[in-house]
């Protein structure tokens, strides 16, 4: 393998030139990191420091204290965090199960009306919560046929995200690649439909499960409008939704917001770092497919 060739990248930057360009490059990289990661790092620093006003929000630590977190806990942040985990846990489990099941039918079966179903699923990606906000809030207050009121219940935040077009499409594409022979030999051995699905197809889908898992997680964790429509009072707030009410505190000032924001940020960052490879895979797939 050739290293450091001038034609390896568009800018040819990996080719080592004079010390000046090297310094310039390091400088540029530092600036870029400070601009994009700096504010989040300042959040980390500030959450553990004595930061009472916005003018003290910097990368330089101001003392060390856990006071922001104890104040945040006094103000029910753990409840909000728990709500968030319930919504993301329940929503994601359902979303993955529903996606895998639908993809199995779309990728492995052929049946009349299949193209129409596929188009319908595609079309749901043009119908996000924002566009449907007004009628969705009415539907949530009185679900058709069963007449259940989901306002004020975490189910109202879980059920609408239990099916996601993006996951179904990514999973379907992946399942199409699995050789049919495996499935057919299992069928000869007398395996039933559900058994083929769970014992043959599912284990082979593990890489794609990572992709839809990490995307589903960030999608549900980022939900704002849906919890806003569903929550009746603070008892059902998710953590992102609660931040608005934690902007200041008479004891620790801004610190309480920084502590709560850090807790709202960490799960998605950890999930992303753990599943980075799958995330990148889904990213390019999503951009190309829409």
């Amino acid at each position, binding site marked *: 393998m050739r290293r450091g060739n001038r034609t390896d990248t568009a800018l040819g930057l990996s080719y080592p030139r004079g010390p000046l360009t090297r310094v310039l490059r390091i400088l540029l990289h530092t600036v870029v990191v400070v*601009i994009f990661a700096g504010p989040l790092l300042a959040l980390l620093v500030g959450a553990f420091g004595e930061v009472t006003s916005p003018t003290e929000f910097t990368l330089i630590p101001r003392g060390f204290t856990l006071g922001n977190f104890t104040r945040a806990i006094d103000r029910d942040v753990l409840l909000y965090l728990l709500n968030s985990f319930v919504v993301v846990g329940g929503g994601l489990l359902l979303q993955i199960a529903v996606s895998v099941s639908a993809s199995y039918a779309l990728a492995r079966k052929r049946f009349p009306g299949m193209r129409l179903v596929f188009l319908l699923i595609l079309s749901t990606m043009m119908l996000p919560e924002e566009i449907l906000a007004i009628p969705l809030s009415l539907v949530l207050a009185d679900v058709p046929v069963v007449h259940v009121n989901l306002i004020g219940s975490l189910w109202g935040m879980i059920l*609408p995200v239990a099916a996601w077009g993006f996951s179904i499409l990514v999973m379907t594409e992946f399942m199409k690649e699995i050789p049919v022979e495996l499935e057919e030999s299992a069928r000869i051995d007398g395996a039933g439909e559900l058994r083929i699905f769970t014992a043959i197809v599912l284990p082979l889908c593990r890489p794609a499960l990572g992709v839809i898992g990490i995307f589903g997680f960030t999608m549900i964790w980022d939900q704002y409008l849906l919890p806003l429509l569903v929550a009746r009072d603070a008892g059902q707030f998710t953590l992102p939704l609660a931040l608005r009410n934690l902007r200041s505190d008479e004891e620790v000032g801004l610190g309480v917001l920084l502590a709560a924001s850090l807790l709202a*940020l960490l799960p998605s960052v950890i999930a992303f770092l753990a599943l980075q490879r799958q995330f990148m895979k889904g990213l390019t797939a999503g951009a190309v497919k829409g």
Partner: protein
Amino acid sequence: MGATGTRAEPVPPTAPPGPVADRPRPRRRPQRTRWRGAGTAWLFLAPALLIFTVFKFVPMGRAFDMSFHEVRPYLGDLWVGMDNYTRVLTDEAFSSAIVRTVVLAVGQTGGSLVLGFGLALLLEGTAKHLWFVRTAVFLPTIVAMAVVAEVWRILYYPGPDGTVNSVLGWVGLGPSQFLNDEDTSLWSVMSVGVWRGAPYDMMIFLAGLSGVDRTLYEASSVDGASIPRRIWHVTLPALRPVFAILFTLAAIRGLRVFTEIFLLTNGGPNGSTEVLMTLIYKVGLERHDLGVASAGSVLLLLATVVLTLAVRFARRGRDSKAAS
């Protein structure tokens, strides 16, 4: 998930004993099994279709229905024809919100694309530390919008010793009122969008850049072309489809911008950042004028559908060239 594997599942009566092994054509499903298992297929699709119907298609139907009515709870809805649409399209608040939405969507999208492309050029390569820089730069994209908005509210603190104002002070600019001033609020919101959008575009561009034919770079450097000329004549043309896709996708997403406005300014000050979605939210859920709010939603949906279909048709022409 695992336990279901052990449950005995009767073989569906429609399923024949299974294809014989001596078929000479592998891969493609044989014709005779074509409609086999249609019932099972619908069974596997049922949960997704049920949820989509209840939470997507029924609300969409309700939106269409309400948009032609004056919605009066308990009294029964009144058919008003196109009145709600006329009101949305002629009302001053709505039309200026639509203009602002388009300005914001185009500005955010364009800014993210340019900055994202610059970042991609700067951070392209296989060195280990580049991977670290790219990951750090990418973080804003995965953090929940609510956190991003709160962080930027702090950074935008309007006093002269606010964070962004301090930085501007170093280069002799500012102090600015940012979100608190009618003249700067929309630009401030737009910058947050660019900050969060550019890293996403960067990652897609990086995937595209790795697909650019390296022999073209070699050829151009043999010909003595400078780096800017090489980017202009080789890199940019190779990435054109990526640009087109990213632009339209982000523009579509930009039209329904809600959370950042709701948290950063809630449409203020003095309506200077009121976009279509925040206005629909207020009209529908605070003023309970469901008919007009629905008409606004339907128009937003139509714009989305038209743009999406336009992309699909445009892409069908030159397929397969897109970032792989």
